[in-house]
């Protein structure tokens, strides 16, 4: 019985890690509500949070900061867990939520909306003065989502025609992704200056676009994904032994891969469509998790989610504090964090064995 006892101890440790991270996400999430580009004092923020304060303060807290913090938690978790699932199901440690060209397709959709159809994006940036003025931010997001979903279905459809091997998926994703990028370039070539700059700003990735409605949609998709990924933990663990071995253990590898890639990509599509491109969360967080806690998906799925939330919360807070007056694009901050980390992975010897 010694082994089972040992096992329970280990499980307890994992529960402690998850609980600690959850507490950290909550604590940092709440404290992020007190930080922003507007000059609100701590007491003013606290007042507004509890329902007292000037209409402007109430609006900053409840219409801007709360949905923004929620977006960071939801999108961070979604992007990180998508990255983890992509890496496992494609057996490729460099796979990311955008491996199937999701981001490229979303950027094209958004560009099409902004440049060709003069979509409502211009009044929905992180420009506080016009925040509440008319304009439907859904037009751009909807088109981004439509194109990214179409791209996913196209790639997965193509791959099921032939063998559904990881390399085929990755290469098809790269090829289709580059088509979207090329189409975007052509579109931007014909754009007006205003249209072009709006399109470029869109692709920066900015949590300031979040509203309760977009948060709710993202939360639904991300939660569905997380529940599915958690249920499949053992099957992902089996995949770590290689595709052939997993098959001999009774795993329907092709089906699992198809559904996992579809869900991970749809999560990414939802996040990118509403918030713009946010790079590297999906690579950094799964890698840090695997390095610290090993590869058991019963642990890495929830921990990656929490790491993602934490990273995006911190990056967003940094982006709001660093830009004087307006927030820096959070996508840039996560990427700035990502590059040094990647270099660390490449030069770390232990990493080779674990990821």
């Amino acid at each position: 019985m010694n082994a089972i006892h040992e096992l329970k101890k280990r499980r307890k440790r994992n529960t402690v890690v998850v609980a600690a991270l959850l507490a950290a996400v909550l604590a940092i999430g709440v404290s992020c509500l007190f930080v922003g580009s507007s000059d609100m004092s701590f007491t003013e923020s606290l007042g507004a949070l509890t329902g007292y304060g000037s209409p402007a303060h109430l609006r900053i807290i409840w219409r801007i900061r709360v949905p923004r913090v929620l977006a960071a938690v939801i999108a961070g978790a979604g992007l990180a867990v998508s990255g983890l699932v992509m890496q496992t199901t494609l057996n490729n440690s460099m796979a990311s939520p955008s491996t199937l060209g999701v981001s490229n397709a979303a950027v094209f959709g958004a560009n099409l909306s902004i440049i060709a159809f003069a979509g409502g994006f211009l009044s929905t940036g992180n420009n506080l003065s016009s925040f509440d003025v008319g304009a439907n931010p859904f037009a751009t997001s909807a088109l981004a989502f439509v194109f990214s979903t179409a791209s996913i279905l196209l790639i997965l459809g193509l791959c099921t025609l032939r063998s559904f091997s990881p390399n085929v998926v990755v290469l098809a994703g790269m090829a289709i992704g580059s088509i979207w990028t090329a189409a975007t370039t052509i579109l931007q070539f014909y754009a007006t200056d205003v249209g072009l700059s709006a399109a470029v700003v869109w692709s920066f990735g900015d949590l300031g676009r979040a509203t309760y409605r977009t948060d709710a949609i993202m939360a639904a998709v991300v939660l569905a994904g997380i529940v599915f990924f958690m249920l499949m933990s053992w099957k992902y663990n089996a995949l770590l032994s290689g595709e052939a071995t997993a098959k001999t253990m009774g795993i329907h590898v092709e089906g699992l891969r198809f559904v996992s890639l579809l869900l991970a990509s749809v999560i990414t599509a939802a996040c990118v469509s509403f918030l713009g491109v946010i790079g590297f969360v999906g690579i950094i967080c799964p890698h840090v998790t695997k390095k610290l806690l090993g590869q058991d998906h019963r642990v890495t799925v929830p921990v990656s989610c929490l790491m993602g939330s934490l990273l995006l919360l911190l990056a967003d807070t940094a982006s709001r504090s660093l830009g004087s007056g307006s927030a820096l694009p959070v996508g840039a901050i996560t990427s700035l964090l990502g590059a040094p980390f990647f270099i660390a992975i490449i030069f770390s010897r232990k990493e080779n064995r674990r990821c």
Partner: protein
Amino acid sequence: MLKVENLHFRYSRTGDPVLHGTSLELKQGEIGILLGKNGSGKTTLFKNILGIEKPKSGALQFNGENLLKMKRRERSRRIAYVPQDIHFGALSVFDSILMGRVSYFGLKASHDDYLAVEKIIEDMGLTDFAHRNVDELSGGERQKIAIARAMAQEPKLMVFDEPTGNLDIANEHLIMVEAKKLAKEKNISILSSLHDLNQALTFGDKFFFMKDGVVKYAGGKEIVTEAVIKDIFDIDVRIVEIENHKVILGGNYHAS
């Protein structure tokens, strides 16, 4: 028990056939050794038996059941695989063995699954490193974990692909003794490919010599002759008997 009949297989529609008309038969509790040059189709035959690949034609039967119509999950409870290059991911030894039971529990391991793994760990003498990470272990130890994982599937047949390929002599011996013990004590059949002909003679009950995608010779120790080895491997050897055991001597004895 395992009956392979007239199996045909090729990897792609335009590719050369790798198996053409392969047949073999193995009884419960027997250790069958598959011998042949690289590229003769041994691994491909294993893949077909294990359900990793699907044959173009032919029949695969297991205790009278049609393996080709069997669900993967069902098949994995009858036939387990110990692959040549063993990966586990950064999991503990215990979890790695528990993974073998995934076809029984599906989503979440039950207490009974834990107990089953516990018993395997005790039986195989793995208690000392049950909680280490698999990727910290040596090649021989990992091979043993792979066997333990296969055992957790409670199979009737275990397929070993070059089980001793990456091991030193001591570990090689250890693994083969372990395999033989399983076959004889638990009445599990074993089908294994091996390179070392003497090792094959020591551990095998039945021998299958493969050449160009077919099993050309099959039978007990009596079929292992100088002529057969010359035909299959294109090498000259001498077979001598020492204390009633056949021993194969390499080198070009006939030419000298």
